[in-house]
């Protein structure tokens, strides 16, 4: 079940607006496809990211996949716990397994992101 209070990118990241930053993680659908996550590499605090472009990488069962930034902005925080235990992403993708906080660019838009219902329809059709 995809939480209704989040926004979703086509590339399977979720976004929660929290004050002046957006918390970003991977959706349950994404982590279920990846199965056991063993390594994760995320951008550094202060790095600029562009919506739709790669911002990190994840390894699971010998497969390396890109993680995409769901919006333009600057990395405000990174979930350091993942460097010790990347499997947190699989265990709790909407909670302790969050990836980064992005401070949206001044003209940063979120209206390209999907609602939970729209995202559920996308993944059911996958």
């Amino acid at each position: 079940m995809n939480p209704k209070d989040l926004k979703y990118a086509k590339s399977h990241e979720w976004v929660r607006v929290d004050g002046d930053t957006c918390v970003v993680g991977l959706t349950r659908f994404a982590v279920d496809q990846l199965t056991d996550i063993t390594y994760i590499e995320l951008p550094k605090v202060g790095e600029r990211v562009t919506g739709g472009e790669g911002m990190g990488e994840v390894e699971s069962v010998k497969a390396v996949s890109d993680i995409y930034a769901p919006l333009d902005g600057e990395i405000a925080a990174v979930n350091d716990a993942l460097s010790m235990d990347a499997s947190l992403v699989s265990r709790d993708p909407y909670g302790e397994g969050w990836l980064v906080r992005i401070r949206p660019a001044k003209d940063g838009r979120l209206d390209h992101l999907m609602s939970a219902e729209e995202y559920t329809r996308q993944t059911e059709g996958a």
Partner: protein
Amino acid sequence: MTGKPTELRLIPLETNSAEMAMALDEVLLEGAAAGKPSLRFYQWASPTVTLGYFQPYSVAAGFSGLPVVRRPTGGDLLVHDHELTYALALPDSLVPTKVEELACLIHRVIARSLNARGVSTTCQPAKGKLQIAGAPEGVLCFLHPAAGDVLAGGFKVVGSAQRRSRGGLLQHGSILMKASDHARWLKGIDEVSGTDLDVEELARSLGTEIPLALSLGHSGRPWSGEEKKRALQLVTERYGSVDWNRRR
């Protein structure tokens, strides 16, 4: 390109240096992301160590004297010597939703092909660890069979790794034909089965069997000039560079 491709491009068996092998595999992935599925087979010009994308360079310390190249794919360290390697690149439209399904599918095809040549194989049911006396702990891919990897005589003889990018997937894998003097703990297909398989014949056969398993036709087409140029660029920028190979 629109619609689902129906034909797999087959690139004839070749021998590559390690850095060129990885560069050509990445060229294959770029082609797949542009909608063109391809399959190729290759052997290694000299014994080489490759590291999984996330592995630290230091894990190769026990293999001094061998060239070390970082793969674009995941997994553990491999010593490539007497092996047949395949690389399959598919556009997203042909990739199963679960990443490991493709590895299992291709491994089943290879296992069947080996069985038909008198090699008795099994597929590893779940992630495991092989206990082999004297083998280094924790770094060698062929000591850690994943679900679906192919085993013969108690040794892992086929394993694969993947890279997913926007629009496509690369899966490459090793078929361990004979033991290497550089990884004496591992045995190849010929040692465990008492066979002496013809690598070229096996590659030709798999070049028919893999497309069939994917419900695709196939046609042979060598590298274009543009592709070779791109591969050379990737050797310079990435697989032949110290920055890339020692980045972790």
